[in-house]
């Protein structure tokens, strides 16, 4: 048969598993055969280079398909979305596709699961790779059926030339075929080039459908495996006792000899933990152990931090400089100025960090983790132990929602477990307690924004000015490594996220990038750690921008929706705003509404906001009630319109929108990390309250589908349009603008002076 001679498809007799086609990319030729045989048999194989040896797809003799990706399921539906893309290109039923995610032994490195990249980048790679797999199968089928590929059609994994049929399974029956797909990756993670032509989107029958999420049944029946469920033979439970102040070091350690049985104290540098066979013994031991830490008090406090941020040395970057904003401000008749402030925030994983490390005397290391980037953690652990990444295996499991907390700082608990396991020569499970997570998670940064605008007598915008002070959103330190004296990562600088939205003639935007608070004043290389938190940076930037746009519209006596539309030209931007407004039944009028009051009883108002996040357009209209005597704000309804290009799974997107809306209402109304000069002081859900069901708004989503535009992220955009819309709704209801988050009752009550 001709396919045997094809240099890209090699054929070997297969003994056991019925046969398979293994689709690879970037695999050194000498490894192809062994790797294919191992993969087809469902075995692990070693990866000399974790970045390139990539086995993507296996088409099995029983017609099932296995696809492997370093991307991981965070509850956002990527497992199902990627399976839909693979099934679509291969023309197989979606439930014949099994996604294997986040296992460094077998999953090719498509980057981490963050930054709205899973569908946008990994999805586009899968589209091409599955198309290559389909092309390989069609070559086999052409040979089998004696017809040219151009005369073949595929439906549900069965190839037909009109007269005869052969299934994919039959094509690979009894042999192991390997196909090294002729693809290259553009810029590492930005896409893929190949020779096969992916299906035209007009022919889609699986992509675009509301396929139920594949991960849900296991989560509902307690059969899903979370990292917290993993038990390794001989494993010890560890509870780490973290420093008192962020820069504190150990002065002395008491004794546990008689107080708690079955425990041992392990110290590596300033990493100290109590280990025990029983989890409760480890907890009691950690509570009982007296550790004296050095005093450290170099932080500002959460009360004065906004003033302090302005005094720190910054690295400045001009984001936008169009026309002459300074000159226009100088000469304008009407000027506005305002300062917006956002607090430090928690990711607030509902389960604290947990990981298991098994560092063995033979040099091999296995990590059980809920990280957002298994290959990243693999490299970090190798660096911590001065070994090759190939000695480190990371197995990723379901975990509590992390929203970026495990993206740059891949897994703090794993970084601690590594040193503890190496020290005791046994597998060690580190489980943080609630206070550990609230205090030591890398937070979202607090920010300050100075806004200015100039208007002419007719209310037209002559100048727009936005300066932002922001600590980093990309701390990538691993806590255990730093405490153990082996820091491997840096903390970065703050910046700016998000595009210039409106066509203001004279516009100036300046980012004052700040280092991590007190980073230079601790022995660990980090300060008050701040890293990616769902729509990092853009959440804060957009809050200030969109609220201030509302202020300008109010000053000009304009309807805030009309005002935005007047300053937009992009049809997708206009469409999402109009869709949200239509769903909400928006009627044009300026804010505040007539009858706005801080004196009467409960008043209601509305707000609108718009954003472009990584190529996705989102707009929200919200309604909220304000009770001046108590300061209580309740978001009642959110109408959220979104255009993320091609829709892969509308049901999953609706849930992502609802998730983003509710989480952001929580951030805007309730959340603030408090800290004194030593450390974070909000250590539980009482001192760091989040949204409860009582206050959850109703969400109506409107999805705009653009099949001709490649898909972009759906988990983050909606996060950006809530905080300003709530602030604007309070203004609409009361005539008072509140510019500092969160909009907790005490702040609102004070601002309203009721």
């Amino acid at each position, binding site marked *: 048969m001709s396919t045997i001679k094809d240099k890209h498809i090699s054929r070997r007799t297969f003994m056991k598993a019925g046969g398979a086609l293994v689709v690879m990319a970037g695999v050194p030729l000498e490894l192809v055969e062994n790797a294919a045989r191992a993969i087809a048999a469902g075995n692990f194989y070693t990866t000399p280079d974790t970045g390139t040896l990539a086995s993507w797809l296996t088409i099995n003799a029983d017609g099932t398909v296995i696809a492997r990706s370093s991307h991981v399921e*965070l*509850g*956002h539906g990527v497992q199902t979305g990627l399976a839909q893309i693979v099934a679509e290109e291969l023309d197989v039923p979606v439930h014949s596709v099994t996604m294997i995610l986040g296992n460094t032994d077998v999953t090719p490195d498509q980057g981490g699961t963050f930054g709205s990249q899973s569908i946008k980048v990994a999805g586009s790679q899968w589209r091409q790779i599955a198309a290559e797999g389909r092309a390989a199968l069609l070559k086999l089928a052409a040979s089998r059926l004696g017809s040219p590929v151009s005369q073949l059609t595929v439906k549900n994994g069965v190839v037909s030339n009109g007269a005869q049929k052969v299934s994919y399974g039959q094509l690979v029956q009894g042999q192991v075929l390997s196909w090294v797909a002729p693809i290259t990756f553009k810029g590492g993670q930005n896409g893929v080039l190949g020779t096969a032509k992916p299906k035209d989107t007009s022919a889609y029958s699986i992509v675009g459908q509301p396929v*139920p999420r594949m*991960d*849900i*049944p296991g*989560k*509902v*029946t*307690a*059969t*899903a*495996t*979370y990292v*917290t*469920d993993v038990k390794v033979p001989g494993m010890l439970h560890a509870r780490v006792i973290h420093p008192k102040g962020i820069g504190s070091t150990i002065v002395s350690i008491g004794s546990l000899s008689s107080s708690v049985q079955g425990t041992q104290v392990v110290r590596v540098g300033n990493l100290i933990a109590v280990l025990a066979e*029983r*989890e*409760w*013994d480890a907890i009691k031991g950690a509570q009982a152990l007296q550790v004296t830490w050095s005093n450290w008090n170099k932080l500002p406090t959460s009360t004065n931090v906004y003033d302090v941020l302005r005094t720190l040395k910054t690295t400045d970057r001009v984001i936008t400089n169009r026309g002459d904003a300074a000159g226009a401000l100088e000469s304008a008749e009407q000027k506005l100025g305002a300062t917006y402030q956002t607090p430090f925030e928690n990711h*607030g*994983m*509902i*389960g*604290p960090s947990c990981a298991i490390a098994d560092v063995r005397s033979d040099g091999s290391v296995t990590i059980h983790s809920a990280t957002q980037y298994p290959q990243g953690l693999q490299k970090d652990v190798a660096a911590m132990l001065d070994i090759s990444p190939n000695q480190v295996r990371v197995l990723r499991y*379901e*975990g*509590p929602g*992390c*929203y970026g907390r495990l993206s740059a700082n891949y897994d703090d608990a794993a970084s601690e477990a590594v040193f503890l396991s190496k020290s005791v020569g046994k597998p060690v499970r580190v489980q943080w*307690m*609630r206070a550990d997570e609230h205090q030591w998670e890398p937070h979202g940064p607090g920010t300050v924004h100075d806004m200015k605008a100039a208007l002419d007598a007719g209310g037209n915008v002559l100048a727009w000015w936005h300066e932002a002070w922001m600590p980093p959103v990309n701390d990538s330190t691993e806590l255990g490594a730093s405490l153990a004296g082996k820091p491997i990562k840096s903390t970065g600088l703050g910046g700016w996220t998000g595009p210039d939205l409106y066509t203001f003639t004279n516009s100036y935007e300046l980012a004052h990038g700040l280092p991590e608070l007190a980073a230079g004043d601790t022995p660990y290389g980090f300060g008050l750690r701040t890293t990616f938190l769902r729509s990092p940076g853009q959440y804060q930037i957009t809050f200030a921008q969109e609220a201030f746009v509302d202020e300008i519209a109010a000053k000009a006596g304009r309807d805030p929706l009309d005002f935005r539309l007047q300053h937009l030209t992009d049809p997708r931007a206009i*469409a999402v705003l109009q869709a949200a407004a239509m769903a909400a039944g928006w009627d044009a009028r300026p804010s505040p509404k007539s009858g706005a009051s801080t004196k009467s009883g409960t008043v209601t108002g509305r707000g609108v906001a718009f954003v472009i996040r990584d190529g996705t357009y989102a707009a929200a209209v919200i309604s909220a009630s304000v009770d001046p005597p108590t300061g209580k704000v309740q978001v009642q*309804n959110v109408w959220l319109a979104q255009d993320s290009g091609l*829709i892969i799974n*509308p*049901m999953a997107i*609706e*849930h992502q929108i*609802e998730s*983003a809306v*509710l989480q952001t209402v*929580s951030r805007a109304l309730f959340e603030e990390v408090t800290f004194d000069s030593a450390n974070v002081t909000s250590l*539980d*859900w009482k001192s760091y309250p*989040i949204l*409860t*069901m*009582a206050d*959850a*708004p*109703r969400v*109506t*989503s*409107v*999805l*705009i*589908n*653009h099949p001709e535009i490649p898909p972009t992220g759906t988990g983050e955009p909606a996060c950006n349009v809530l905080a300003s819309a709530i602030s604007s709704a309070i203004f609409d209801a009361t005539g008072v603008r509140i510019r500092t988050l969160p909009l907790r009752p005490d702040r609102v009550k004070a601002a309203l002076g009721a």
Partner: protein
Amino acid sequence: MDDQTERPAAEPSNAPDPIPPVDRARRAKIAGGIGAAAVVAAGVAVGATRLVRSQQAIPEGSVRVNGVDHRVQSSADTPLLYVLRDELGLRGPKFGCGLGQCGACSVLVENKETRSCITAWTAVKEDVTTLEGLSARWAKQKGLSAAQAAKTLHPVQQAWIDQQVPQCGYCQNGMMIMAVHLLARTPAPSEAQIRSAFTNTPPSPHLCRCGTYMSIIAAVQRASRAMA
């Protein structure tokens, strides 16, 4: 022309009202034996997820979980959560806070939603049902055959799948346990009653960080209809 998929707005809610007092008659214990499914269904009020309580005492040093007695090795002050997870290998109840502040660890003790992270196992004298045991509990209540039971989920679990509730899923154990607790007392709860139950039932609100509350409300109402 763009395709637009619109999602209908949820029903308007009324101001939160308190959960009605528990129906005393419904709470009254119904005598019965243990072990055999046959004893269970008779006498159970429609819509009330009331299990027949075992008359057989749980042996000293044991917990009865999902119908089975387990000897416990843990020290007397160990929270039930660690017994369930570490000794019994159950996965439903999750560690979320250890403080009774979030609800991820919830189990049913007899018929009451209970935070296993702050309840010493030695303080538990009644039957424990975890997420893993909900289906069998329902099958018993409905008197399903073994064959039927094997392919039947508890209506709350089925509703959670049908409404596609979980995102990360970590808190959903407690949410489903709370739903069973609520539906046993208020078989047809209003939206306001659901919001109140999940927020105001001591010792704390049930917290979800992924933002699934509205899907939970829809799922509880769906389960309510299925159980009616």
